């Protein structure tokens, strides 16, 4: 019941093509949820189902525990990947129009708009037509339009595409702030670094199926392989390598550092780091010691290629 959104066995077909094949997801209230997947995996279809733009052929979607209904559109904010606004309409007018379509009262919408325009310092744009604005400026308006009606659930499809780094940062901060205030956020993106940085939960969809779902940390734990990155200035290289290879699997590693040391990847197998460390200390000056944590990018690529956690 703590899930704002519960997707159960959703199937969607277009003719002979199956876009979603029995996908189930649980999105906890108040989290930032990363929806990942290669192009054509079915992310957009899933998002459109949540937005009630299309409907599932089978399965159900629950919003706050109740079946998703038309009245829920006012509680959801959606910024699609293919986005834009009316070019020949004034900024203020069209923001008001879109807010009213979401069920907002006109006076309330005006108040909220004013708040956001002041916050992003764009008050002077109210009477400008969208075609007079630059692309970055238009993106700001786009963001405001998405969040204006104070949605409980914010769905952002590739939110940073088209933003310059300054604006992308600005929007990122706004998103985090909204999240702090309790808004649940679904991110659909290819930008792994922002997933890594912002998302608490992730789900990976590939070829119409869900492959991975869970808390980011749990997923990473599942995919870690108990290997450590070691930097060492050895007394005697041959002895060190002899001692190490006797007990562990060792590969050369590559990481950035300021020293001219030996860089190794050591797979511990069933041992722990405490078994490795004394061995290293005997044989030289340890400059670097850290666990190899799989990045989302690695997990993404390897799962799409069909590898299971153990093969990683």
């Amino acid at each position, binding site marked *: 019941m703590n899930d704002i959104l519960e997707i159960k066995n959703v199937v969607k077909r*277009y*003719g002979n093509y199956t876009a979603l094949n029995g996908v189930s997801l649980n999105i906890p209230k108040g989290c930032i949820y990363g929806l990942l997947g290669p192009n054509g995996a079915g992310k957009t279809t899933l998002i*459109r189902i949540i*937005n*009630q*733009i299309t409907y599932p052929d089978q399965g159900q979607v629950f919003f706050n525990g109740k079946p998703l209904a*038309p009245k829920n*559109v006012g509680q*959801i904010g*959606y*910024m*699609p990947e*293919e*986005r*834009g*606004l*009316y*070019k*020949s*309409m004034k900024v203020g007018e069209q923001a008001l*129009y*879109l807010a*009213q*379509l*979401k*069920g907002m009262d006109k006076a309330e919408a005006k108040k909220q708009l004013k708040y956001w325009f002041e916050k992003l310092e764009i008050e002077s744009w109210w009477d400008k037509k969208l075609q007079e604005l630059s692309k970055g400026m238009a993106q700001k308006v786009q963001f405001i*339009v*998405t969040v204006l009606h104070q949605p409980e659930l914010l769905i952002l499809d590739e939110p940073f595409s088209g933003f310059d780094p300054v604006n992308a940062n600005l929007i990122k901060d706004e998103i985090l702030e909204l999240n702090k205030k309790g808004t649940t956020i679904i991110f659909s993106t290819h930008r792994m670094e922002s997933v890594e940085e912002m998302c608490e939960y992730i789900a990976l969809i590939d070829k119409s199926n869900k492959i991975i779902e869970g808390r980011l940390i749990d997923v990473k734990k599942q995919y870690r392989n108990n290997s450590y990155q070691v930097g060492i200035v050895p007394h005697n290289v041959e002895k060190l390598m002899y001692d190490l290879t006797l007990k562990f699997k060792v590969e050369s590693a590559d990481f950035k550092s300021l020293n001219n040391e030996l860089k190794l990847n050591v797979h511990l197998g069933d041992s722990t780091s405490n078994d490795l460390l004394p061995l290293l200390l005997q044989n030289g000056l340890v400059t670097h010691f850290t666990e190899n944590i799989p990045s989302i990018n690695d997990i993404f690529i390897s799962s799409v290629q069909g590898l299971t956690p153990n093969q990683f």
Partner: protein
Amino acid sequence: MKNLFLIIKREFINKVRNKSFIVMTILGPVLILGMSALIAFLTKMNDAEVKKIAIHDANKYIIAQFENDKHTEYVDLSAMPFDMAKEQASQSYKALLYVPQVDSVQQVVEAVQYISDDSPSLETIFSIERKINDVVTKSNIEKLHIDYKKIDEAKANSELKVLKFSGENTLKGINEIKIAIGSLFGYLIMMFIVIYGNYVMRSVIEEKTNRIIEIIISSVKPFDLMMGKIIGNSLAGIIQFGIWAICGLAIMFAAHSLLGSSPQIDQAQGMIDAMQQQSPNSFDKLNLYIDEILKLPIITLLVSFVVFFTGGYFLYSSLYAAIGAAVDNETDSQQFLMPIIMPLMLGVYVGFFTVMNDPHGTIATIFSFIPFTSPIVMLMRIPFGVPMWQIITSMVLLIATFFGVVWFAAKIYRVGILMYGKKPTWKEIYKWLKY
């Protein structure tokens, strides 16, 4: 419902505020006036030109019949030898009418020649032939020793009185008026559908190219959006037509008070004068005309106009909306527009050609039932008196088809608005229906 209203409002305001719409609204009447003035001017210019035709008629058989009039001046070159006359005519006259020196007037009919480098208009030929025929006929009559006056007396001039079985008088010319009224309504509907259907289509394409469509349909149902567009644009259209109608009336009144009388009224006056000369009871006749127009099923006509207008416009503009959704830009829309324009054109042509000849004939009747042509054809038929059951059946068919087509268009619309990048084929659109 609230969203539908919001969409209608936006579409309407957006359309009405649009610069090209304002310009068209103002310029429309000016353009029409200018065009009519230009046509009138050109016709006058054409009339003002005097043609000079030379005649070589050495025996003076027919020359007396050719008197100068407003448009033609006849010059007698009979005094010259034919060769010289021909030479001169080719240089300074439009044509030479050559009557060879034959033995009798009767032979003129066969021998007469019209010599000119440009081929004469039909009107010119008929007028010359008539004049020659008159001369020869008269001569023939005299030759047969018949009293010409007696022939005139013997000539009968029948005048068919047209009545209804109920005994009321009807007027022969009234059919033209009925056709004019019916055609006006039918034509108006066609124009409206073509112009504002296109606006609907463009508005759909605009939302697609602006990429705002997905944002909007995450808030409203595609069906509401489509209907909002259709209604909003039609309201703008009605305003535009209304302004034009008011402008037209104002200009007519202004012209009337400035010039004393407008050209049309002059013409009407002329007709009345002519009628007065024709028969002594012409005033009764005029009254009959007025009676007859008032007796047209005006209420039926107006109600039908509203129903067929709304039905026809909604039917077609939902198709326009579906096409707008299926394509990415206006250039791609051409191949899909053809099947829409065809039935409209068919309606107008069937209306003009068959209804005029036989308002209750099989073809006219059939086409006034087919929903895609009925708004035009039925309205053209109604002034001639169509049984109520036919009108109602046609309306029911139209409305039923409207719902079917809207359902079909909404399906295409729903899928089409989210498709980008490629030009769809008919086959693909057919597949969308099953999504």
